[in-house]
């Protein structure tokens, strides 16, 4: 049953990926990438990694889809057809894919109890956290306590990313308001609106 579910999910994942490559409508692509994240979340559930699956469903399928749609509202709706030949990129993809498949031959088998990930620090954490932390969810215990410094760093990364986006985009918002008070209002609808705004601020 487990194998059947895995095969079905991976087939759907591959179909979604092919559909994303073949589609030209950017709106459909954003929606399909949300579907892709949701299918990845399901695969993570079958691997018993519910915390990661939860994050994938919330961030990948939820927030990033919304943010992509927000970005889409600022650009065009259709992907421009590529003018280059697709042979060389296809070759690169095939070679890279073959190398990755070759690399998986060295990986431990699915669910192998002797895999390096299972025998390194994981048993130690599992044994110690019952006594030291006494939290049923070991993931939380490792994340917040044993690796508190890592998580502090991750929070700082999220903070930095947020500040960076704000500095990049909110500055433009202030310029737009300046422009609206100018009573000029001819640009903003065409693709040159951006450069016009910059020119206006420089002048």
């Amino acid at each position, binding site marked *: 049953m487990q194998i059947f579910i895995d095969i079905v999910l991976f087939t759907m994942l591959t179909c979604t990926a092919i559909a994303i490559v073949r589609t030209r409508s950017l709106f459909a692509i954003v929606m399909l990438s949300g579907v892709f994240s949701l299918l990845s979340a399901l695969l993570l559930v079958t691997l018993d990694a519910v915390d990661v699956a939860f994050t994938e469903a919330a961030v990948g399928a939820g927030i990033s889809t919304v943010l992509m749609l927000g970005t889409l509202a600022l650009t065009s709706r259709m992907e421009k057809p590529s003018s280059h030949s697709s042979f060389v990129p296809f070759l690169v993809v095939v070679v890279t894919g073959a190398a990755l498949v070759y690399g998986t031959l060295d990986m431990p088998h699915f669910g192998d109890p002797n895999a390096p990930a299972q025998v390194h620090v994981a048993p130690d954490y599992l044994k110690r956290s019952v006594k*030291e932390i006494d939290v049923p969810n070991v993931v939380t215990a490792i994340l*917040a*306590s044993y690796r*508190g410094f890592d998580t502090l760093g991750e929070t700082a990364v999220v903070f930095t990313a947020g500040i960076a986006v704000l500095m990049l985009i909110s500055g433009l*918002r202030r310029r737009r308001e300046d422009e609206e008070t100018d009573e000029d209002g001819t640009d903003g609808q065409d693709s040159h609106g951006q450069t016009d705004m910059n020119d206006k601020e420089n002048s």
Partner: protein
Amino acid sequence: MHHHLILRVVTKLLCGAIILFAFYVQFHGDFSPGGGFQAGVIMAVAFIVYGIVFGVDQVQRVFPPWAVHKLVALGVLVYAGTGIATMFLGYEYLDYTAFKPYYPSGGQHRGILYVELGVGITVTGVMVAIYYAFASRPPVISDEEW
């Protein structure tokens, strides 16, 4: 989206439930899947859904941008402040035993609660701030083209 009556009613019903679920994920993260990162995203989703359906101006009346920007920094401060607090109590940075030296795992529970809260606050702030930054810009595509 003023003509989508069903969407508007359902959104109003859902927002409260989403926020409640975010608090559940936040404070029940020690016992069930979840934690600060997931809870922050879910909390942000409540405001983003409201903003999509009712407009950015409406949601910014509930959750103004200056408050969002304060939250972004506040979360990191809560997290780092927890570490400072443990140092003042005579232990190492982020050693939660300091909160209850006579009952170490209880102290761990409390420390995990604080740092997860910090993570949740920052993630909520960042997600909502990014959404505001994108949604406040004038759309190039008109509504009908979707």
